């Protein structure tokens, strides 16, 4: 059932800072008319609480295999010439990129749809957890469906 397709499709976990620019430049193909990218950043608030920083923890082995599976699903569903996603672990301050997705396609429909698909699936399926550190001193692991 595998389609012969071009391009690079890679998901990985990074302990060091995400560099969106080098990631974006690496997604290149002469047939590509559209790159849709998503950058998730640490926000200064969550559910009304002031957030100072986050820690992300991942089950790296499983996160990378599940993330790679998501990119392969995107490759099958959308008309892509490449797709990359990287997720940070460790301590992040407000404003730092926590996750980056780039989807390269001939046309903007495929690029937007794939980019959205990847970030939605990553957020719901990939074993990564954040602990929020609040300005008033406490911290919490976030488990959304709990």
């Amino acid at each position, binding site marked *: 059932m595998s389609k012969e397709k071009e391009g690079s499709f890679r998901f990985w976990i990074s302990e060091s800072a995400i560099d969106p620019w080098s990631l974006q430049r690496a997604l290149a193909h002469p047939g590509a008319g559209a790159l849709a990218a998503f950058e*998730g950043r640490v926000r200064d608030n969550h559910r009304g609480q002031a957030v100072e920083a986050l820690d*992300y*923890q*991942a*089950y790296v*082995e*499983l*996160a990378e*295999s*599940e993330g790679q599976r998501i990119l392969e699903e995107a490759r099958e569903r959308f008309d892509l010439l490449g797709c990359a996603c990287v*997720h940070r672990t460790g301590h992040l301050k407000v404003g730092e990129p*926590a*996750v980056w997705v780039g989807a390269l396609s001939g046309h903007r429909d495929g690029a937007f749809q794939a980019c959205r698909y990847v*970030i939605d699936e*990553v*957020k*719901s*399926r*990939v*074993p*990564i*957890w*954040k*602990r929020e550190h609040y300005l008033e001193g406490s911290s919490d*692991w*976030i*488990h*959304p*469906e*709990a």
Partner: protein
Amino acid sequence: MAVHVSLQYFASLRDRTGVANESVTTDAATLAELYAQCDESHRLGWPIEKLRVACDGEFAQWSDPVHDGARVAFIPPVSGG
């Protein structure tokens, strides 16, 4: 029929157990039974239906058997992104 398995804990489960990994000897027949034992010893406090389970680095079924040398992780709801 006791087997040796290694358990990995993440996020709030790691806080609860106080360890990232542990080796245990268990007579649990399935991953669900193994979770029940861990929940009892560590008071993990999660109803099993809120968790997923992984074995040897892949998502698994709670009804899967526990084999000797298995690397098992209980996966609480994720919050990446």
